[in-house]
């Protein structure tokens, strides 16, 4: 009987092996690796002739084949949802990630969003089966190594995936145009781009001629508290410059950079602006009463502000950041920007691209 026992262990080993190897062998037999060719096109019924197709190149350089008409869209991360909505895709959304449905702003703009199926989140992982079950015509995803497996799995289901990379203003405009093209909402997408171009031109017209030494020097309080700030490679740096200002920390590198109180005092910025998500003790009142910062010009002249908006930060590379630029420009150069009615501008923007004015959505511009 001990002989049988040695057999038993080997039996178990071979059983496990068989259970695991057989399907893999089957995979070899059928001669396909995962990831069916995207050229199949159709994604519901096999053997039906593909409707007219078109190919586009997404922002990750991938060539994606799309059906002629895209009516069912899934977004997988909040900035993406914002972007798709701004590009005119609100009515085509059939499912989103969980966090998108928890964004106060998005819910205000599109109350029905909460009834859409949720497909996971960027932070915790996307549920590919849920995505497939919602039968999308196209899925928009962010760029990164963590999303690669999702792309592969969706491609194996012959579902087109479009990668968007809105990290700089240029890229964001590109993304909006691309989304418009994908969804067939080029008009609205173009509208947004035009709006951006118009405003950016207006800013450079009015503020471009200010000599460098007369520009307002700005310190932006960053995500990790008063002594973290936007280094030169962040979008926020670009934002400040577009608004005609100079980022005192522009020579630094590496995302949100840590600085000492001394450094901040030495920089002596004219204006201090804190992002909404800066953490503790970084609101204007706390900054103004901070004993270490009393000598700074911005504190002395009461030019310490919170970057809008309270509902959703505008300093990210996303469609509403143009409003952030306008707001900052008005703060830095109230005379030159005197004829800008900020709240009207903001209301119009929201009405055009999100269907309701900012005020209707519950937003305010006071802290």
């Amino acid at each position, binding site marked *: *009987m001990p002989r049988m026992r040695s057999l038993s262990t080997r039996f178990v080993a071979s059983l496990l092996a068989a259970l695991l190897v057989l399907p*893999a062998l089957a995979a070899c037999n059928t001669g396909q690796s995962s990831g069916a060719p995207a050229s199949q096109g159709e994604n519901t019924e096999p053997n039906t002739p593909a409707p007219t197709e078109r190919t586009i190149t997404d922002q990750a350089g991938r060539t994606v084949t799309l059906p002629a008409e895209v009516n069912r869209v899934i977004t997988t991360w909040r900035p993406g949802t914002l972007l798709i909505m701004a590009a005119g895709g609100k009515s085509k959304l059939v499912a989103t990630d969980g966090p998108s449905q928890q964004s106060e702003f998005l819910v205000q703009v599109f109350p029905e969003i909460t009834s859409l199926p949720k497909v996971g989140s960027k*932070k915790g992982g996307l549920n590919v089966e849920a995505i497939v079950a919602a039968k999308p015509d196209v899925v928009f995803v962010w760029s990164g190594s963590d999303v690669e497996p999702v792309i592969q799995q969706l491609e194996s289901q012959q579902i087109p995936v479009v990668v968007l990379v809105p990290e700089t203003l240029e890229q964001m405009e590109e993304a909006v145009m691309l989304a418009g093209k994908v969804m067939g909402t080029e008009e609205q997408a173009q509208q947004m781009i035009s709006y951006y171009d118009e405003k950016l031109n207006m800013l450079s017209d009015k503020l471009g001629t200010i000599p460098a030494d007369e520009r307002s020097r700005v310190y932006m309080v960053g995500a990790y508290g008063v002594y973290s700030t936007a280094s030169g490679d962040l979008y926020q740096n670009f934002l400040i410059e577009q608004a005609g200002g100079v980022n005192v920390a522009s020579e630094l590198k590496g995302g949100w950079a840590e600085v000492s109180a001394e450094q901040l005092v030495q920089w002596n910025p004219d204006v201090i602006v804190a992002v909404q998500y800066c953490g503790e003790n970084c609101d204007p009142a706390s900054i103004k009463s901070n004993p270490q910062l009393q000598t700074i010009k911005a504190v002395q002249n009461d030019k310490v502000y919170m970057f809008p908006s309270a509902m959703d930060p505008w300093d990210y590379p996303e469609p509403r950041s143009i409003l952030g630029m306008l707001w900052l420009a008005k703060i830095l150069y109230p005379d030159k920007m005197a004829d800008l009615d900020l709240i009207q501008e903001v209301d119009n923007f929201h009405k055009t691209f999100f269907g309701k004015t900012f005020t209707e959505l519950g937003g305010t511009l006071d802290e």
Partner: protein
Amino acid sequence: MSNRTARRSRWKGSLGIASLITLGIFVLSLGLGRYAIPPSQVAVLLWEIITGQFDPAQATEPARVLYYIRLPRILLAALTGAALAGAGTLFQGMFRNPLVSPDVLGVSSGAALGAALGILLPGGSSATIQIFAFTMGILAVALTYGIAKVSRGQSIVMLVLAGVVVSAFFEAALSFLKYVADPYEELPAIVFWLMGGFHRASWPLVRALLFTVLPGMAVLLLTSWKLNILSLGDEEAMSLGINVSLLRPFLIAAATLMVASTVSASGTIAWVGLVVPHIARILAGADHDQSMPVSMVMGAGFVLLMDDLARTLTTAEIPVGILTAAVGAPFFGYLLIKGTREAWK
């Protein structure tokens, strides 16, 4: 002799039951998922796949979901569970310590650091990250072994201590990388990887893992009786004719190959390698020849079940490591309280 027969049937019973349960979970998993596929269709598809009739180019959507998304994931989960449980049984026996997990020699810390490096380096794809993780996992164990060997021969105590040192070092390095990582993309990607999960499953990945995990499992199963001798301690093992300085590194290598590959594919999944060997010992007895196969089968079933929950419980994906901890830790506490006098002191 009748008592021996009784104990043998006890083992066969526990192996049989464990296998049956795991097989049941396997079949159940095939039918579970956010994409609804009726059981009859699942059965048909499974048959087609096994008999090689399945042709992905002609398949319907449910078949494609089953074939490309669900099946690889199930296999990955089962392989991972079996590998972790088997490695746990091996290390607990080898280090004569029922509180040891497969991470004891630093493979997880190494793999985590490797993944972080892969994420931070420009042009990192999912595949490069896995390769980095795998390589660093192996490197960490090699380093542990080297340190132990250099200091007065590789006794068990030295190996464990060296493992502590190496793990601490790699974890410090990981903290540093997290600190310098870009907070928008890289840091979340690192955190996401660390949480662990089987959503990366694909056929190429499963096939690659078969090459590393199956041989490792085979080695562990075939030498499981020898593990008994090894578990007596170096002196007695040597006196009984075991060349400890050859067998131990050989087994460590086999186990590390298994664990490094599963960790690089699915991240760190805790508690499996610690708790499942205990349960296997309680059910099948202390003889590793009996407890090793039971441990592997149970590990596969347990992780499979946890992953089923992870992908179907809510609309999101719950990281499977959270579930294994949520189930594993209290169960372990229960075992301690109940006093597993049968299995260990």
